[in-house]
């Protein structure tokens, strides 16, 4: 018997309230996405036709329309947006890991009283506005921005580098904003690592870099995967960063969805894009849950 479950009704309430909230406002909406993605756009409010329509005198028919999905497969725009999203998400995840792993490692190995302030410094930018952090990069990267002014002032370049509105700017923005999401889980796994394992390895004749490759890295894999998925999944649907830092040729699913929805008012097409994105994200999500559970179980 658990203290808080003294009465079954209390127990049921504790479970039911959050469950129904999430089922209603998180799970159920996906069904509507699916439904609308199968309907036809129309010039009305809301701008889609119902799947179940009354044709005449009470005759009801179900009209399912796959043309949105057909369009996704036929028009190369959408497939290249999917490819663009995958590419940006994969490359920036890689760079987040390359920068975040050494940082997490350095924090985990720093003196005890330094760790909390160092972690706070990682989290602190996250508490300032996301939009404003992207805005800061506009000021740095644009043609007459800080970076170009600095490089030209130093005489390193003659004409401004074109970084703004290129994929490079998108990568910088993504890595900058998602870095804390890899550092924190990596730190959590590295700090739990039993240091006597390294001493045992050293005692058995293992050199430092080999200790890292054979002991530290394999044991921190759950943190690596969890951190990677925490970046990869949301970046797949990222809208603000490609919109503000990327150029017209930066094709990503999130941005395209936004355009279809807000500019073209094509709700059914936007829904089918959302459905496509959801399907693509199932595998990384399953990976994330698997490794988060493993790192929880490894936690005594």
């Amino acid at each position, binding site marked *: 018997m658990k203290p808080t479950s003294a009465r079954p009704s*209390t127990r049921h309430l504790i479970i039911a309230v959050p*469950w129904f909230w999430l089922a209603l406002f998180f799970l159920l*909406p996906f069904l509507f996405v699916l439904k609308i993605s199968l309907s036809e756009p129309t010039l009305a409010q809301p701008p889609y036709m119902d799947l179940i329509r009354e044709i005449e005198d009470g005759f009801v028919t179900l009209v399912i329309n796959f043309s949105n999905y057909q369009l996704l497969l036929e028009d190369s725009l959408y497939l290249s947006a999917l490819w663009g999203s995958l590419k940006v998400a994969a490359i920036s995840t890689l760079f987040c890991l390359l920068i975040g792993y050494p940082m997490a490692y350095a924090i985990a190995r720093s003196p005890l009283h330094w760790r909390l302030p160092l972690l706070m410094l990682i989290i602190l930018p996250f508490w*300032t506005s996301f939009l404003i952090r992207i805005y800061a990069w506009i000021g740095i990267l644009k043609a007459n921005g800080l970076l170009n002014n600095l490089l030209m002032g130093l005489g390193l370049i003659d004409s401004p580098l074109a970084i703004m509105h290129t994929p490079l700017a998108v990568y910088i923005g993504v890595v*900058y904003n998602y870095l804390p999401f890899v550092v924190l889980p990596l730190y959590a796994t590295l700090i739990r690592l039993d240091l006597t394992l390294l001493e045992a390895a050293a005692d058995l004749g293992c050199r430092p870099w080999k200790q890292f490759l054979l002991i530290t890295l394999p044991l921190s894999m759950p943190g690596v995967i969890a951190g990677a998925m925490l970046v990869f999944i949301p970046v797949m649907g990222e809208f603000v960063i490609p919109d503000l830092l990327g150029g017209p040729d930066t094709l990503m699913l999130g941005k395209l969805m936004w355009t279809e929805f807000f500019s073209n008012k094509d709700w059914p097409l936007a829904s089918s894009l959302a459905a496509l994105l959801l399907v693509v*994200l199932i595998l990384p999500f399953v990976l994330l849950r698997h490794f988060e559970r493993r790192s929880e179980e490894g936690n005594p």
Partner: protein
Amino acid sequence: MKQRLPLLITILLFGYAFLYIPIASLIVYSFNESRLVTVWSGFSTQWYSKLLENEQLLGAAWLSVQIAALTATLAVVLGTLAALALVRFRRFLGRGSLEVMVTAPLVMPDVIIGLSLLLLFVAMEGLIGWPAGRGMTTIVIAHTTFAMAYVAVVVQSRLAHMDLSLEEAALDLGARPLKVFFTITLPIIAPALIAGWLLAFTLSLDDLVVASFVSGPGATTLPMVVYSSVRLGVSPEINALATIIVALVTLAVLIAGFVLWRQEKQNRLDAH
């Protein structure tokens, strides 16, 4: 071990420089006289006074703060319930689905959350007439839905580390279950609740995409105003806004640090 030390310090220095130089540049140029954000032409605080005269922006900020406070409060209640269910009850019908629904919003792209909730609200309005139109209520519901997942994660880890015999001891000394929850459990997980509230507040205050989908005419939040102004080009007013936000956050962190430090000192004094 010793010879690796300089390398680790260098890594940290570069890492933190990468994180903080953009923010520092925002602050410096918020005091620039010129409208051209990146050309320094002299010290001025004019953008701060312009910001304070910008009624559209101030109105949006006030709306955002209200939404964020409501969201954070609701999210703490719902997230704590979810955490209690997951930590305290080992087996129940719907456990698997609750676990998934609590983890998924943490990574779910916000375009999907925004679009799907909008479609739900539109359908619900057609079916039962609620919510009538979209605005503050729908934004609060949407924000609560993803923020409660973050709260649940924070509270879950605190609850999991709590010694269950504390609650048993209170029951044993004659406190009824509800009283045990309010006099023992709640005070012990309070730090997690506060952290969760602040996290939910920040997430809500920061959200552009979800709010853009589920908002209606008349409900323009701060990120929407900032977004449209940033789209039009760089504006020193945004630098001033950024500086104020950074100052507030820094102040909050310093206060929290000070409180913790004083508590620790007090504890040490008590001990002697």
